[in-house]
């Protein structure tokens, strides 16, 4: 917008924006304030915490990568092709968002336990109660967010942009990599951030599919849950705050690095 003067419309928008910002700052402040310094220190020195941080990081990143691998083709096909039953499949892909994670966990447990369990076991690819299960659960929860965002990003591309690249000698795959993805970059990065954040905070499905085994399938979210369960709220909150700070830091770094925060 071009006028320097802020009018009512912009005023209201800014007001809401500022209120929400304050709300979130106060919220995080509350978490920080509630936590005790001693708890932070003890959390940071706890070997279980170290394990959980590393474990959470790699599982969530792997899950996000896998989510991208699935979401890119799904988003693309939902965006570019028409076929009977498309609305149905489109909605089917929202299922993991709709289902309470607990139920998602059960559904995964049914699938990878009684249904596919034996076959997977023979392949040495046990998923239930294993670290693989953590990745699968996070992937399952995060993927639909990526699909939805990617589809939207692909939707907003002028197909003639892709046509031009075809005439310049790019195969459909080349066009996709060289034109479609860069044009959808903002949306893809946004979707990845969202998927990662979701994978990070995921608890219900992970707990159900992978179980909560200390030093084996214990993510940060799980650690928080466990500490809550034994009534150690201080410790739980401290873990949550540290996890939050790490996540925010990583996301800011990612945004600055990938240039999505800055509007070009």
């Amino acid at each position, binding site marked *: 917008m071009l006028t320097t003067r802020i009018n009512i419309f912009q005023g209201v928008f800014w007001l809401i924006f500022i209120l929400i910002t304050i709300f979130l700052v106060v919220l995080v402040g509350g978490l920080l304030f509630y936590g005790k310094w001693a708890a932070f220190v003890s959390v940071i020195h706890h070997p279980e915490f170290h394990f959980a941080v590393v474990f959470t990081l790699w599982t969530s990143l792997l899950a996000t990568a896998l989510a991208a691998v699935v979401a890119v083709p799904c988003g693309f096909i939902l965006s570019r092709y028409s076929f009977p039953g498309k609305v149905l499949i489109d909605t089917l892909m929202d299922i993991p968002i709709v289902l309470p994670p607990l139920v998602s966990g059960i559904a995964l447990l049914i699938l990878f336990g009684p249904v596919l369990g034996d076959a997977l076991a023979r392949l040495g690819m046990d998923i239930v109660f294993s670290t693989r299960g953590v990745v699968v659960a996070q992937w399952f929860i995060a993927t639909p967010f990526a699909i939805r965002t990617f589809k939207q990003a692909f939707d907003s591309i*002028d197909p003639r942009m892709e*046509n*031009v690249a*075809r*005439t310049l*000698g790019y195969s459909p795959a080349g066009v996709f990599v*060289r034109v479609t993805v860069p*044009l959808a*970059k903002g949306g893809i990065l946004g979707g990845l951030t969202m998927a990662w954040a979701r994978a990070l905070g995921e608890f219900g499905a992970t707990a159900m599919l992978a179980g909560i085994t200390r030093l084996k399938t214990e993510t940060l979210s799980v650690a928080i849950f466990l500490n809550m369960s034994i009534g150690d709220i201080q410790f739980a909150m401290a873990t949550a705050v540290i996890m939050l700070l790490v996540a925010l830091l990583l996301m800011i770094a990612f945004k600055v690095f990938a240039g999505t925060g800055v509007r070009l």
Partner: protein
Amino acid sequence: MNQDLLEACALTVNVGKFSLKNIGFSMGPDDYVVILGPTGCGKTVLLESIAGLRLLNGGALFLSGKEITHLPPERRRLGFAYQDSLLYPFLTVQENILFGARARGLKEAPEMRRRMAYLAETMNITHLLGRYPRFLSGGERQRVSLARAILTKPPLLLLDEPLSSLDRQTRHATQELLREIHLAEGIGIIHVTHDFSEALQLGSHMLMLHNGQVEQAGKPRDIFFHPATEFAAKFLHGENLIPGKVVGREGKLWFEHGGDILLGPLPECCLPKGLSPAGNSLTMFIRAGSIRLSRAGEAPAANSWSALISDVIINSTHVDVYCHGNGSSWQSSLSLAEWQGLDLSRGERVRLSVDPEYLHVIPQ
């Protein structure tokens, strides 16, 4: 026989309610084809179809004798530039231009760099190479888009109004560049344009489309001076379209308008083919530049008639004189100097004359 570069046989393409019907033409590597036609007649759709960007509903395409009807666009390797430039916003101007080279892994190749520098120099966009497209003006964008299509020397270039947002000077330089690329590098060009002088100056062959069909095809000059239909004549801004009929006298054919004017004898070539003209209601087509204007005092001669000047419009290169005589309007174009020499003004009586060589009769 010189092999055709491109041969299009009975192309049919449906796009929504519109369809290109039965388009057929062929061109050699030394042909520069211009496509002309009113807006919405299907020019862009035709180019897209040739480039492989639209599925044909019928017909076949051959490039250098090989069928390409079912080849995907990237294997046809034709240069293509859309009407609106469609640059990649995430690439700089330089990277946009080199985008086709990158497809072949030649992005860093010195010959591509050299060619890019040459094109940028010729089109006067060297100072823009490092910029992103959103910081360019409309004309700048169009030149970059053209350079991108030309870079890798495709055997055939498909250009959709490539010069439409350029100023005269830049356009001139770019026309020269296209001509040079065409002649020196032996690249065939199909060029959609709305500009007649562009068509005349560049085209060796012209295709006029109307409602998705070929209205007329041939050498631009032929079409300009001998349009086959009234639509073509009107579309080419035929200034004088005079109704009348052809009559035979003294073994020759003459064109009779309103009983008073008799023009002729008509040369063979200027009569519509395959049509016995005598007696039919026909239209006489005379370009404004072919009608000579002289002071009324001069003696009446064959193929001349008198008229009153109704309007005079002085253009940058010529003067348009509108006259009224024998129940019709006539338009004559003169050079500035000639007009000056005649020393006439509105309302005066003049004598109009035409050389039978410039007469052209078209069916109504």
